[in-house]
């Protein structure tokens, strides 16, 4: 028994094809974001950027291929609770995620 077929194990996803690869998704609350830039500095995948001037400055996900690895470090460093991941990454074929539930904060019960 195997969770992936031999054919699936041989399939290598194309990383910039939306049918093959889903990346992490972050939710940003523009009302809470102050555009302080900390999350853009520490993001390991370099997918965040700030835009706008002065008080209107906010963070957003860069246009184009944004390969977010859903580490949630942006959430960990955010003093205003303005950003967090809502979905992890997944791929087809060999690198398909198995037996996972949704991203969850540490649970006590």
């Amino acid at each position, binding site marked *: 028994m195997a969770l992936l077929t031999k054919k699936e194990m041989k399939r290598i996803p194309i990383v910039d094809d939306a049918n093959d*690869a889903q990346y992490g998704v972050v939710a940003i609350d523009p009302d809470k974001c102050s555009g302080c830039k900390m999350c853009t500095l*520490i993001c390991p995948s*370099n997918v965040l950027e700030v835009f706008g001037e002065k008080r209107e400055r906010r963070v957003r996900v860069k246009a184009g291929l944004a390969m977010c690895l859903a580490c*949630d470090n942006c959430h960990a460093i*955010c*003093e205003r609770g303005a950003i967090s991941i809502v979905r992890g990454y997944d791929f087809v074929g060999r690198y398909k995620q198995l037996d996972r539930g*949704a*991203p*969850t904060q540490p649970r006590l019960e």
Partner: protein
Amino acid sequence: MNDVATEIVREEDPEKIEEQAGQVAKIDEIEEGAPWNIVEEAFLKRRSIRKFKKKQVPAHLIRRMLEVGRFAPSQGNCQPWKMVVVRDREMIEEMENYCAGECRKIAGMVDYTVHEKGTFARWKTEMLAKLLAKWKPNSMHPVPFAAVSLVARNRFAVFHHPPTVIFPLMDKRGIGHPEIDLGIVGTNIVMTAHSLGLGTCWVGLASFLNDSPEWRERLGVEEPYQLIEAISVGYSLGKPTLNTVSRETHETAWFEAGKKDLVY
């Protein structure tokens, strides 16, 4: 032999022992839903740090980390490791440049994302990427693939410019699975650093150094040792441990009372 053990027990102050135990938690008294204790919280709030302050970490703190590392469990107590510590900024930059150069070479061959779809360059790089994935499927996972691509485009660093790098070298002759033991000694080091207010990051791309005869000689990596990972250490920028993060749950098979449950 027994005499020595008895002596040690006798010398300990019973009140002190109780006080120390209480610092973590009195195991019998933990109820479901009780708040995370100090150790649990340390594990939950450890993050991989990729932005460091310039300030060097005092040598005695690094020694402290290595000392806790020394007491990591290992298969058959074989302790299949040897540490290399680099605290010379220029040397760290040279290592960074070398590894980034290797990333550029690989990206040049297989990073198809920089080429327009339908072009010959795209077709060629995609073919090579798939071939390489057959040979090294774990290294060619899309996440390290993206990391190599970012490093090649100067949008990401290998070591993240830390003031100190620790290489836990692995003795290939270790019992069973020495990689596991390396992971455990590294966890001891990383968690000690976290408890001291320092930031760390595991650096897998550092293993390029292992394939370079020049770097092996310079770092003193000789057979049967292997450089498989590095740990960058420094003071983290900002407050990266302010909030806990979300992580996916994992299916757990739970066997109890004669039946099997799947829990997440």
